[in-house]
């Protein structure tokens, strides 16, 4: 089976009832990013929409990075979580590209939790700034240590104020 689904445009997507919809969104709150377990995929802004297709539940996700190795894990977690909360196994999780995932999709709660976890949230701006404030001391005196970090979505910075290296999410 393909990881991506491109055929939704020809499909007739329908709405789910309000209570089913609320339960699915609730279930998605409990699916965490395996590399940042403090933050849910909903808080990361990865959920594009939840709808119905041919009577089945359809969860559309936006990958943060195309080559993110966590995607298959996330897909299985969503299937498991929805099955557990709703008692239904007719759920299809598809990764879509109708719009690109961007840093601006991270919710305020997601930003707060990233900070608590010690990862600087991405700079969201119109210019090309990359360096976020330090998540430990808040100083804006960081420099790039490595544009590439432990996962595709993270970079490594160094804070000249508190003399700590720190991780931050790349603006995308």
């Amino acid at each position, binding site marked *: 089976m*393909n*990881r*991506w689904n*491109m*055929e939704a*445009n*020809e499909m007739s997507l329908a709405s789910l009832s309000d209570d089913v919809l609320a339960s699915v969104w609730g279930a998605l709150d409990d699916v965490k990013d395996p590399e940042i377990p403090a933050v849910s995929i909903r808080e990361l802004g990865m959920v594009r929409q939840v709808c119905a297709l041919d009577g089945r539940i359809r969860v559309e996700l936006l*990958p943060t*990075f*195309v*080559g*993110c*190795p966590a995607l298959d894990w996330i897909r299985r977690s969503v299937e498991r979580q929805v099955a557990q909360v709703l008692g239904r196994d007719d759920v299809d999780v598809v990764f879509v*590209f*109708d719009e*690109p*995932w*961007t840093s601006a999709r991270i919710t305020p709660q997601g930003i707060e939790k990233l900070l608590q976890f010690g990862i600087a949230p991405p700079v969201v701006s119109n210019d090309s700034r990359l360096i976020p404030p330090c998540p430990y001391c808040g100083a804006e005196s960081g420099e790039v*240590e*490595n*544009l*590439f*970090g*432990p996962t*595709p979505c993270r*970079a490594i910075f160094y804070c000249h104020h508190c003399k700590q290296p720190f991780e931050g999410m*790349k603006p*995308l």
Partner: protein
Amino acid sequence: MAVHTAAVELSIEHREALVDFLRQLADDELTLGHRDSEWLGFAPDVEEDVAFSSIAQDEVGHAVYYLDRLAELGEGAADVLAFQRDGGARRNANLVERVNGDWAYTILRHFCYDVFDTLRLRALTDSSFKPLAQGAEKMLREERYHLLHMESWVKHLGRAGGEARERLQAAVEAVWRDLGDLFSLGAHAEVLVRERLMPVPPEELLASWVDRVGPVLTEAGLSWPGAPTLTTEAGRVGVHGPELQTLLDTMRAVYHLNPETRW
């Protein structure tokens, strides 16, 4: 002009051209991604081990995106396409199959490719094949980081002077010998451009590439060898150097132990 959202809408002529082009895209990314991964444990410092591994992961991920589109067109599963096709069926440019050589060559080759890939992706955001337009929009944002990284290395090595700049200048000469087919759209170029599957023709892409690369080489104190000459031969029509076979032997060694294994 039609916007193609699915394979069923394509004529046979368009389909053949699209399949060939998707192979060019997938094979460029997969081959260079494999070369990037070869630096793991051997890069000049641990930061570059991390950087090249991360870049490799991005490039291979992009290859999978294109291979999945081929699978949707009925060309076979992504793993089969990645591992079972022999050199003659591969459409990557010669540049990305060359062995890594020294650090200067690695950096300069990647910089030249990343500028090309960024321009190609930007063009593809207007592709009449919607999955390509959507994927390009996403990948473009990721490639920004590859380009930033390689450009800063080119400038660092160039400004360092001495052996670093000498090696970088030698890399320029070596990369230039392989630029001809990079811009080629292969056997179906005319259809690809006419149907706007790939809306920008090679000559135009090359001109933008020269405008972008020239000033960086100047800033790095390197001499400009002149605009590369385009060719429609070589990698885009399946003609490769012996390096590709060696690369494929390594890349497929585990796969061939048991192609049916589920990972």
